[in-house]
């Protein structure tokens, strides 16, 4: 059992994304940063999409009623297990009754806490991931609250592991996101690829509002088409909106850019005030980038797919 002592700003159970249901309006959900979640799961010997706690901005603590292995990955924060200082990116041993405390995150947004035994979660529409707007999946379809108790299955301990340094998220407040032109960017020269943008405070698992100068000819509402995580749309107010894991399935705002599949996991670490640049990427480069990053991650996590 895990007792939630402090849930932080937003902690949810996330597992694999939902797939094949976007035509019915069902978003992917799942981890905002799928790479970090898979790395946390790897530390306790679990498959990449096993259910995890996704902790936004840290400042959370949990009491474990029985001895257990845990793994932490994602945004950097100081961590203590009982009275001991502990490391992220390494298998940690928690004794029965001990408290795992995560300090506030200074850069990045989300930390993933994986535990050795299976976390009990509601499996719905093919995934245990929490989808907050409709209130399903995870723990009662909601964020965790102080006093919640999560049931954890017993598990055999695995050999301790440490995430290779080259695979860890490098903390940053500035991102260069590789992007291809979206279906509504009529002229690739019409977008200022040198421009720098800033993440506004309107930010959730659904998407991140982006301030900056977007081509104005693009604004307006057109007949709805499918959109996916990584889509950059321009709202009638002239702001950008980047879709994340819980992003809606269809939209009518101009879809200017698409962050390439290889870089979408980074979107889960954006926080207000972060700077973004979009790097103009060809389809061939996008495919090469996916192959390269996938090969690197697969060497450590054979089952993982970006």
């Amino acid at each position, binding site marked *: 059992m895990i007792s939630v002592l402090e849930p932080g700003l937003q902690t949810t159970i996330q597992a694999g994304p939902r797939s094949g249901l976007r035509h019915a*309006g069902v978003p992917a959900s799942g981890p905002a940063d799928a790479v970090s979640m898979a790395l946390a799961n790897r530390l306790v010997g679990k498959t990449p999409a096993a259910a995890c706690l996704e902790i936004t901005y840290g400042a959370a603590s949990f009491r474990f009623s029985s001895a257990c292995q845990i793994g932490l990955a994602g945004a950097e924060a100081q961590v203590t297990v009982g009275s001991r200082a502990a490391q992220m990116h390494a298998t940690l041993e928690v004794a029965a009754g001990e408290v795992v405390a995560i300090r506030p995150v200074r850069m990045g947004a989300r930390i993933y806490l994986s535990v050795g035994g299976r976390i009990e979660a509601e499996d719905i529409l093919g995934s245990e991931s929490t989808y907050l707007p409709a209130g399903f999946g995870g723990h009662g379809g909601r964020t965790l609250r102080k006093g919640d108790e999560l049931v954890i299955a017993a598990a055999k301990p695995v050999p301790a592991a440490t995430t290779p340094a080259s695979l860890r998220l490098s903390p940053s407040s500035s991102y260069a996101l590789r992007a*291809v032109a979206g279906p509504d960017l009529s002229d690739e020269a019409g977008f200022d690829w040198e421009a720098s943008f800033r993440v506004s405070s309107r930010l959730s698992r659904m998407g991140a509002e982006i301030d900056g100068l977007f081509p104005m000819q693009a604004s307006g509402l057109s007949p*709805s088409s499918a959109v996916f995580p990584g889509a950059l749309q321009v709202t009638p107010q002239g702001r950008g909106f980047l879709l994340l894991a819980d992003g809606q399935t269809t939209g009518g705002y101009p879809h200017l850019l698409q962050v390439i599949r290889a870089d979408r996991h980074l979107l889960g670490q954006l926080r207000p005030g972060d700077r973004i640049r979009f790097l103009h990427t060809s389809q061939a480069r996008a495919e090469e980038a996916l192959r390269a990053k996938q090969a690197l991650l697969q060497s450590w996590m054979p089952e993982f797919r970006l």
Partner: protein
Amino acid sequence: MSGNSFDIIACGDDALRILCGPGDVRHSLAERLAGDPSWNEIVPGKQDVTIAFNPYTYTMTKAREKLQHALHTGLTHSVTRGRDHVLAAEFGGEAGPDLAQLAERLDMRVETLLEKVEQSPLKVDMLGFTPGFAYLTGLDPTLQANRLDHPRSRVPAGSIGLISGQIGLYALDGPGGWPIIGRVVSPLFDRCLTEPFVLKAGDSVKLRPAVSPQ
């Protein structure tokens, strides 16, 4: 037999969009493509169908070729007809808090408004926005209404929204910005089914007043 020559454009680095225009062709296209496990997602929009492909199986070039081939082999010649649904609904009162005001604004009696809704040959044009939310076209054109100035943070599952030209059916509880005129009695979502949402794009819908038990 001639095939179709719709334009296919990229939608990001791992999806393609068939510009097939509005109408039934979207639904028959989507239905036929759904039989092929190469496609991760097949999402009809208002005027197109977007297909997310598995980038570990296909490059975009290969995916495009495969899609073009599917279109040229007469994929859309058999127009699949959606199912017909007759959905019983409660109108007005607690189930339809905006009905009376809407009738007043349209300067018609509530009965007249409901008659027009019931006689409209509604068709599920697409699903989107939230899980299972169905956009229905075919609404009597005299029923003109705008979205609410202040969207509700929660409307109950089954709620029937109405804006000009369209009916929106909420499959789940959730936020809603359309005036609500009633509520469908039977559930539109069953989590135990493989296709958990009752309505699919291309289906026909008639709304009928629920018969209240004596």
